[in-house]
């Protein structure tokens, strides 16, 4: 007997999408996550873009997953109650001489079967996006491009999987994997677990796990991307996602609204050795701030509220590896998931679940719940309904985060729901409390109080993101 039929390593969007798709079937699944929450790696620090699908080479796994993921995202967002919007994307051509390459992109998009692609001339572009650089000579317009909240997508997939029976083991780091006659043994910091199948969705660490079981080695580079995030007051500066055709000044950076109405700028692409190297650097931030002006004018740079960096899992062949490992039966890679990984996750989940369904002869559950209700946002309710909600539960009348106008009711919901928030970052990613222009200066002590109360712990035990990330180190004069 195995502890689990399927062990998924990694609680990012890919791992959680696989978990959610597998939860449709009668199968015993566990997600192993080394952090204290889902969405702690690449999935938390990216552009939040749902790509149209003209970038990847025709016939590649990347192209295939991108198109299918884009197609599935709409229903998924509806089922999981998360913000998603097809705002369309533009790839700007800033030099006449680059026009052939814009056409090449268009043709690739057509070959990939991207719907609605058009090449817009200068006037059309400027009419659509008046803040785009005057240098623009044309742009590739993809109406199916969109934006999604990566945190909520990840959380919602995990919650829904959990509600449908998937187990999650947090702060459980897989340290080694041993091949059994059939199946695998996962050696973790919390004991040894056996599983018939393993899904390797370990992001930048996917090569490490793959190489533990296979002689055909793969290599994944952590490719850092620095971003700057602007206040919501700048969120309408552009409506579409603005990319730039790589030109003589190298690859540009994108300018896009986020699903919550901020404006995001970035990323850089800097290959690094340290797979935990999510520190921003001055060069990185300067590169972002220096390059954005090429594509979009009059950006209100004084409105930057935070900068951050994420690591893409770049595989040497520049391709997604989503398959059963040839010399390791029952070990399924979901590796090299860099851009368009977020877009692709619904398709990746579907693909791997289909593969396992066939291999394991899985039967569908009758009681699978496809829909998940997100955290109730009183701000979205009509006034009378909001007033009624506060009468019923006064915590919805108590604003905790003044920037994002998040109430105590929402924070309590985030803590009490399945796989609820345990830390400030957990609350932040679920509710946006602390994500606004003051970056938690105001709500930090208040959110700490709620976390301590709800988890019945002392304030001094509240962490930013689990582990050793406690917010306060003691009480006044405790060393005097």
């Amino acid at each position, binding site marked *: 007997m195995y502890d689990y039929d399927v062990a998924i390593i990694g609680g990012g969007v890919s791992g959680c999408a696989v978990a959610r798709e597998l939860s449709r079937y009668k199968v015993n699944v566990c997600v192993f996550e080394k952090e204290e929450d889902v969405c702690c790696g690449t999935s938390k620090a990216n552009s939040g873009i749902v790509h149209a699908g003209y970038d990847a080479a025709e016939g590649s796994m990347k192209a295939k997953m991108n198109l299918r993921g884009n197609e599935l995202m709409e229903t998924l967002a509806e089922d999981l109650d998360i913000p998603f919007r097809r705002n369309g994307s533009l790839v700007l051509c800033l030099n006449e001489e680059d026009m052939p390459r814009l056409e090449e992109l268009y043709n690739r998009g057509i070959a990939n079967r991207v719907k609605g692609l058009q090449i817009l001339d200068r006037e059309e572009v400027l009419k659509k996006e008046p803040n785009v650089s005057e240098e623009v000579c044309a742009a590739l317009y993809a109406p199916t491009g969109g934006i999604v909240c990566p945190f909520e997508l990840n959380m919602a997939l995990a919650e829904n999987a959990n509600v449908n029976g998937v187990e999650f083991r947090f702060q459980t780091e897989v340290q080694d994997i041993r091949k059994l006659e059939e199946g695998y043994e996962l050696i973790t910091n919390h004991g040894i677990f056996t599983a018939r199948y393993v899904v390797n969705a370990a992001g930048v660490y996917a090569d490490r796990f793959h190489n533990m079981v296979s002689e055909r080695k793969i290599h994944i580079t952590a490719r850092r991307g620095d971003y700057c995030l602007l206040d919501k007051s700048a969120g309408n500066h552009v409506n579409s996602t603005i990319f730039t055709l790589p030109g003589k000044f190298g690859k540009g950076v994108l300018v896009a609204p986020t699903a919550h109405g901020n404006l995001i700028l970035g990323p850089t692409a800097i290959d690094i050795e340290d797979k935990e190297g999510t520190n921003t650097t*001055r060069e990185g931030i300067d590169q972002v701030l220096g390059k954005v002006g090429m594509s979009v004018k009059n950006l209100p740079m004084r409105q930057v509220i935070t900068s*951050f960096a994420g690591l893409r899992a770049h595989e040497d062949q520049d391709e997604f590896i989503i398959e059963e490992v040839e010399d390791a039966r029952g070990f399924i890679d979901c590796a090299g998931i860099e851009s368009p990984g977020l877009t692709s996750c619904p398709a990746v989940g579907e693909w791997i679940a289909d593969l396992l369904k066939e291999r394991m002869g899985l039967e569908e559950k009758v009681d699978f719940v496809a829909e998940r209700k997100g955290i109730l946002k009183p701000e979205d309710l009509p006034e009378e309904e909001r007033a009624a909600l506060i009468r019923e539960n006064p915590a919805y009348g108590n604003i905790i985060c003044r920037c994002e106008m998040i109430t105590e009711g929402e924070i309590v919901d985030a803590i009490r729901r399945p796989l609820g928030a345990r830390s400030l970052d957990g609350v932040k990613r679920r509710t946006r409390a602390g994500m606004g222009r003051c970056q938690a*200066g105001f709500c930090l002590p208040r959110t700490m109080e709620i976390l301590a109360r709800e988890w019945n712990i002392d304030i001094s035990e509240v962490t930013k993101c689990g582990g050793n990330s406690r917010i306060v*180190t003691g009480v006044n004069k405790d060393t005097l």
Partner: protein
Amino acid sequence: MKNYDIVIIGGGPAGLAAAVSARENGIDRIIILERDKELGGILNQCIHNGFGLHTFKEELTGPEYAARFIEQVVAHDIEYNLNTMVMDISREKIVTAMNREEGLFKIQAKAVILAMGCRERPRGALNIPGYRPAGIFSAGTAQRLVNMEGYLPGREVVILGSGDIGLIMARRMTLEGAKVKVVAELMPYSGGLKRNIVQCLDDYGIPLKLSHTVVDIKGKERVEGVTLAKVDDKGKPIPGTEKYYSCDTLLLSVGLIPENELSGGMGVELNPVTSGPRVNESLETNIEGVFACGNVLHVHDLVDFVSEEAMTAGKNAASYVQGRCEQGMILSREEICIKAESGVRYTVPETICPAYMDDKLKVRFRVGGVYKNCCVCVYFDDENVSSRKKAVVAPGEMEEIILTKAQILEHPDMKTITLKIEEA
């Protein structure tokens, strides 16, 4: 919908003084809306002394200073709502607010006084590179944790920014048992009051490094250390000057931003220099009957000046309600602009309408750099009407001049008043 003559947004020092003054000037129906659980605003966490030297001629702590005004508010029977967040103010002066007890409610005001104060600039606004671990606080947040809740945010501290809160927190953290290793300041001068540098740093042997900034933050879960570097005259770090300080805490005191999201939402015009509303001699914004005072208008150094400014706003709001609003009394609104030039960054107010002006008007301003042996000069159009000698003016200390109504009425065709810093 409830009706009030004056709704005051914020129960900190500005809101309290404005309320008292409006009442003393004859307004009955006043309400203060405060989001925190008690009146007093940021003063409640400022437990050090030094408040009230101008107003009460004695040195009080922040809570004591606040109490003086809270007592007056209570004595005057002025209404206030605590734990109440204002969600929206419409141009028609309908205030939408929310709390646990009353839920979402609306108030129609005749006049509104904006007294929301300011917030601290976060790390992100400075693009400080490095990791994003626990242990990075804005100084005011740390002050609240220490002074109001009794928790020590860290044991080994580096402070970036020598604004007053940063300086005060250097002393406070030391007194509570932490080791403050250094205070770094990007500018070649401190943004804080001279007395705070002496009493909070020098007295405790805490070094102040001018023209320095944080260039890296180490530590993935909790801060492990920060790297400081010297900056050139453009504020860019100079390679080779880096020095690493091991610490578990970084406090940021890197500037305050008036909290004007509500004002902006209702269409109040803001000055990009102060990030506060543009106001006239009555401290009235571009929306008639909407007044502003205190740190929401422009960031002050001393609470005494906040109170004074708020008293003026309260009085003017009262006369607006009694005069223009209820009697339809309209005077000529011919305006004189006040311009800030050569060294002067901004002025409050920015316009004067002589008909509405008191006999004396205080114009407050800040300079953009440190000037020694200089003159603060006032020009009525091209005519220099006064030059006041100053041994030193600095961005950290707010300055003021007084204009008299008599003086202005002597110049009937004047279009512009200009403030400049000139060599003595």
